[in-house]
């Protein structure tokens, strides 16, 4: 099996995730997009591991899946906290850190 389709899928997944992060404001969609990008990277890592016949990459992928699972719990907790504070899960609502507009 040639690795090119896997590269293409990985790139596609990553791009979908990137566009999702940038264009969507729903925090859940943002979260899903991040997961998507992580998965794309994982896929790439696993592919290279297999290609080079080195199992270290695969081990790292398994480890990352575990970490991502833990991270999901944290992420969901944060979203709940944010939703409580603003009664909204629109990411643009949380922009207190922006530079105040000043007139030129």
């Amino acid at each position: 099996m040639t690795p090119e389709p896997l590269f293409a899928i990985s790139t596609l997944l990553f791009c979908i995730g990137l566009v999702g992060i940038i264009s969507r404001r729903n925090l859940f969609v943002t979260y899903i997009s991040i997961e998507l990008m992580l998965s794309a990277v994982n896929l790439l890592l696993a592919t290279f591991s297999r290609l080079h016949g080195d199992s270290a990459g695969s081990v790292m992928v398994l480890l990352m899946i575990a970490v991502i699972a833990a991270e999901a719990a944290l992420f969901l907790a944060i979203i709940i906290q944010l939703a409580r504070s603003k009664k909204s899960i629109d990411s643009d609502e949380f922009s207190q850190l922006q530079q105040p507009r000043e007139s030129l």
Partner: protein
Amino acid sequence: MNLLSFIVLIPFFSALVLGLIYLSDTKKDRFTLYTSIGILAPTLSMILSIMLWISMLDQDSDTIFYSKLFSWVELGDFHISVAFMADRLTTVMVTFITFVGTLIHIYAAGYMRGDESYGKFFSYFNLFMGSMLLLILASNPIIMFVGWELVGLSSYLLIGFYHKDSANIKAANKAFILNRVGDFGFVMALSILFLALEGSGYSFVSIEANIHTISTPTLSLIGILLFVGAMGKSAQIPLYVWLPDAMAGPTPVSALIHAATMVTAGVYMVARFAFLYNEIPHVGEFIAIVGAISALFAAIIATYQDDIKKILAYSTMSQLGYMFVAVGLGAYSSGIFHVFTHAFFKALLFMGAGAVIIAMHHEQNIFKMGGLKNSLRLVYVTMFIATLAISGIPPFAGFFSKDAILAAAFASEHYFIWGIGTLTAFLTALYMFRMLFIVFYNGTQPRVKLSPISKFMDRPLIILAFGSATLGLLGLGEAYGGSNIFGSFISLPDRTLHISHSSEYLLAILNTSMGVLGMWLAYRLFATNATMPTVKVAWQRIVINKFYIDELYELLFVKPLRSLSLFFERFIDRVGFDGILYISTYSYRYAGAKFAQLQNGKVRYYALYSMVGIALVSLFLLIFIGGI
């Protein structure tokens, strides 16, 4: 360091001490303290100068005393040391400057008493003396220039002493700026001289030794530029307009400027560079012509003035013209002799005028005085002597010095200059006696009740009157059975002139009769019922308005310069330079505002930025390190 340095250092030191005491409490009245310190300093300098003079008497005529204070600049072979030297010219100058200066200080104690800035006045006064002595005693042109500038500074401070009136400030600025014009010439001359000497020493002695290495055109340029400096300090055409305005200062200041310090600096400088001017007689002729024209010009203006101090100011300018005639024609010792006698009678005239002004409650218009002969007898007698002296009536001092100058002009066959000089002698007698008669005669009783004059003010008058009457005998020439003690003592490199005794007698008789004629005419016209000068014909209007020279300068220099500076301010500065700066600041601010918008607080944008950043770094790594 020996006593020579102390002549200069004492007035500077006392100026510093007085200034510090004054600043410690400006409100407190410390008349005795200020007076004693202020008068002590010039007195000590005077005593030292007389000691210097006495020790000079039994030395050879080319003896020079040196005193080195410290090295100022040391750059390889180039040395400037703060050092003083005294030859015979210097000794004479220092002695009479400190003597007359001390008397003026004593007089000033009476004149300025009760002034709220009395301490400051004496501090400036001592500074003025010190600067002039520095100028005179300097052993190289650099130190001389330092003194020259300090004289300009202290005259500025003193002319604008009554600084609450803006007209006085304007007069002080005028004096300062016109002196700057002259100083420019002086600096240029010194620089060219330095370059032309090619590093072969820069003290007066070594310049004199190496003067032959410089070509005549360069020397002429140096000579003319030096004279431009002298024009500024010594108030010659065209840089004289500050002198009449300088009367804004207190009267003792005018006395000091006109008699002992400041205006004589130019004449002294030319005499100091006598070795240089002897190489270039054609520049000397130019100097003499400027001097003669200044003398006549000032005398004409003086005949129509009504302010007592301005009459004296123009008379100073006129007498300075004589001095420049003398030094220009190479009769240096006659020129310095006239400086010497002039110091006495001009100081006396100013002090007398100051006494009259105080007595008349600060009235300066001579037509409002009149009839003071009996009430101010001492002032009248002493001023009469001074007026006789300045008018060149024998045997008073001015006769001998002026006669020597006119004889030199005649003997060197500059009949034009001689003619102007003789005409000016007549005008001098006319305007001086006009002033004297209008102030002291012209009515029998004073028109107001006079204020008393303090003892400080009338004692110096007597001493100066004695000097004005007798000091001319020091310069008694061979023709009168004397041996010109002054001229042979000072031993300047005069150009030799030959004139027969009989023509010398004729010239003396002519000068005396000119003086007497002026005196007689003044008596006929002004001794009784003199009135303010009125305009009957056009030329009188021109003379009363001082030939419209101030207006001409206003039109020629002040207005164009002001328009030019306005142009620079409004267009070059505001539009040009400010515009360029505004463009850059505007673009920075604009760019800053644009970049600030990136920080919009939205987390998804931040994610985009980091992604873009990572992408760019990756691209960089791929292209430059990965070598795609």
